[in-house]
């Protein structure tokens, strides 16, 4: 089990140490092609893990819907702020 020296940019996010985070972010591919390929990779990972299986459960779909609910709440927060019960927290 050899430990090969690898450039920081190519490591997975969980392997990047906190100090290297800046370098890592700086080296990632932010061109439109890179962004699209990143989205495609993420989609493929999620799809192949939770949906493209023989006996999938509700989790695959439910997580997507829950994520949509949370995201829409976050986008509407400036409007919902006005329904708060107390002024000072």
């Amino acid at each position, binding site marked *: *089990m*050899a*430990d*090969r*020296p*690898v*450039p*920081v*940019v*190519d*490591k*997975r996010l969980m*392997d990047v*140490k906190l100090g*290297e985070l800046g370098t890592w972010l700086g080296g990632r591919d932010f061109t439109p092609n890179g962004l699209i390929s990143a989205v495609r990779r993420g989609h493929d990972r999620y799809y192949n*893990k*939770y*949906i*493209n*299986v*023989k*006996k*999938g*459960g*509700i*989790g*695959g779909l*439910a*997580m997507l819907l*829950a994520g949509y609910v949370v995201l829409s*709440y976050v986008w509407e*927060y400036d409007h*919902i*702020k006005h*329904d*708060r*019960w*107390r002024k000072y*927290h």
Partner: protein
Amino acid sequence: MLSRLVLVSGSALKGSGPLGAGLVHASRSLHTSSQSLAPVPPLPEKGGKVRHGLFPEELFQLLYPKTGVTGPYMLGTGLLVYLLSKEIYVINHETIAAISIGSVIVYAVKKFGPSVAAFADKLNDDKVAKAQEVKDLAMTNLVQAIEDEKKEQWRTEGRSMLFDAKRNNVAMLLETNYRERLHTVTNEVKRRLDYQIALQNLHRQMEQEHMIRWVEKSVVGSITPQQEKESIAKCITDLKALAKATQAKAAV
């Protein structure tokens, strides 16, 4: 793309030092695209595990070493209390709608989930069975084709015997033909020779008859009338003598 270069160059290097910055364990794979395999690997049986339908199991596994089993639940409770107290999550009419809709959805999923899953599985199984049928049919056809091919190969082995028989036939035909012609030749030659023999015989016969007739004619012609009378008188005297002799014999 760069990562593939890294792999190629990384395998050439032999890092013998301790794990330092910039090194990664070989067990974690890099950002590489997956190789295409053939045949296509089968789909995994079950998806990633999800607890309570919303939270992936990985979260619980992540927190287990540090906080034990109740860790994620405490995290959830704490987070919820924080959101409510700071009113980052505001309770308004939408909350009541969310609660009612959520409870209906949860009830529906718990009640009808298994039957819907069974129905979808049945659909899938039907599709797989159809594909399997086609595959099995193709397999049997191919196996049959292999059998037929082997049979044909076995048949060609007997071809030499067939040719021998045919060769024998032809030889016999040739032989028969030759013998027939031999017979014909013999018969023809015999006929011609017989003809010659008959011709010679005829010749000889005709010569003989001609000669006999000629001799008779000349003899008869040479008998003059006088000689005829003399011969007749001699005959009469001879007859008389004979009669006398016979009479004498009869009397004795």
